[in-house]
């Protein structure tokens, strides 16, 4: 119920927290902490998957599934994604898709 409401809100525009602030500089700041785990620009040198160049739709779908607890194999992403709204998640998916692998 709450989720449905928030989607309606996002679609409605002005009510959505943060959505109106999502210019490029804002998305770059949102993406800042992702690099600590996924590597600079989302290119990971280690055990955490790279996300640079992940197709936008796939990335958004994965992140929304994490947030909604729909990926039982996930460890940390569910806890992190609960801190972002849908508009922010979609903007992040777009950002890392744009970087290219």
């Amino acid at each position, binding site marked *: 119920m709450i989720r449905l409401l928030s989607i309606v809100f996002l679609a409605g525009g002005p009510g959505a927290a*943060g959505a109106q*602030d*999502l*210019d*490029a*500089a*804002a*998305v*770059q*700041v*949102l993406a*800042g*902490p992702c*690099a*600590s*785990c*996924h*590597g*600079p620009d989302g290119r*990971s*040198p*280690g*055990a*955490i998957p790279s996300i640079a160049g992940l197709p936008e739709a796939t990335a958004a779908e994965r992140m929304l599934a994490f947030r909604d607890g729909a990926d039982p194999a996930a*460890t*940390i992403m569910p*806890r*992190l994604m*609960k*801190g*972002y709204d849908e508009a922010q998640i979609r*903007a992040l998916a*777009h*950002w890392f898709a*744009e*970087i290219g692998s």
Partner: protein
Amino acid sequence: MRATRRDMLLAMGAGMGTLALPQILRAQAAAHVAVVGGGFGGATAARYLRRLNPDLRITLVEPQEQFVTCPFSNLYLGRLRDWDSITHGFDGLRAAGIEVIHARAEDVDGSARSLGLSNGARLDWDRLVLSPGIDFRWGDLAGYDEAAAELAPHAWKAGPQTQLLRRQLEAMEDGGTFVMVVPQGAFRCPPGPYERASMVAHYFKTHKPRSRVLILDSQDRFAKQPLFRQGWQALYGEMIEWVGQSDDGLVVEVDASTRTALTAFGTRHKADVLNVIPPQKAGLIAERAGVTDETGWVPVRADRFESVHVPGVYVLGDATIAAPMPKSGFCANAQAKVAAAAITADLAGREPPPASFANTCYSLVGPGWGISVAGVYRAEGGKVVEVAGSGGVSPLEAGPEFRQAEADHGAGWYASICADIWGTA
């Protein structure tokens, strides 16, 4: 309207944008940002400032030619990591076009906007970033000063102290007791003492199985407590004993020469290896810059990490008052990116973008047994707040695959953040 990376670079005046915005760029090109401290906060700030505006002049001041990370230094104590793997140089930052000066910052003049260095040089700056980490409140704990630390190491700044502690553990006979003293007040890395206890227990289990770990704690609860206790029980049985404050865990005096800790209720604990984590405050240069308050830490404007006392001086990491964000390397890195964006915007006469931060602290309880705590944060009304519903600790009921995955992800995090900061993996 979607924001793309290319829009971003154009807006920042990089690449093709240079042709489009000549005046603004000339003003920016002249700007000099000095960064004090080449650790988690400072080196990140230098690198991200460079990325956001390639025309800035950036100078990083750091006395050490090699930076040894506290993160994973506990694994070095547990013999799960070697020294080289936690040591990072500054060539990556130099290659990115940052001038690195190996000297200590001695004083800051906030009105003349200059910085005095231990090599006699004076640097003028347009914006200053301080990320000096912590210093110790020597003498707050009776009997524990710099000389005592040579006998009973703190190893809470990674370096020779960490190596000394490992040598002492190696020299200790089987059947001995390792005692750790956990301080009062805010300290860097809230789960750090308990990860260290775990790693020492791992070393004992594999090399000196009759030995014990005793934690004397000034707190009654600690970070990720149920997860640590579950792991300790499963991996080390009764080897680790934790004594909280109400059960006489508060240590009031230390005698380093006899390796003895005296508690508030009068109990004397004799250790074979004594590890004292001293009470802490912001790195001394913050005090000299006039940015600390009566707590010894630095209040900042949460939306940009600029000092509330001295405009133009940005302070990051352990030195700041940023609760509910913990004093972690992850947070210092996240704060540095927010500050770099704010400084770049400010120099270009724009408002800073809305701040957004995250944290994750992975701890290793034993090989293949990782646990974590996470949070997402933003700035609201001048304070850092945790985004409601975000974050939390690893589930207590998770099975071995989950613990193994988080142990692997901890190593993955370390590789990624080191690449992000120093350009090393």
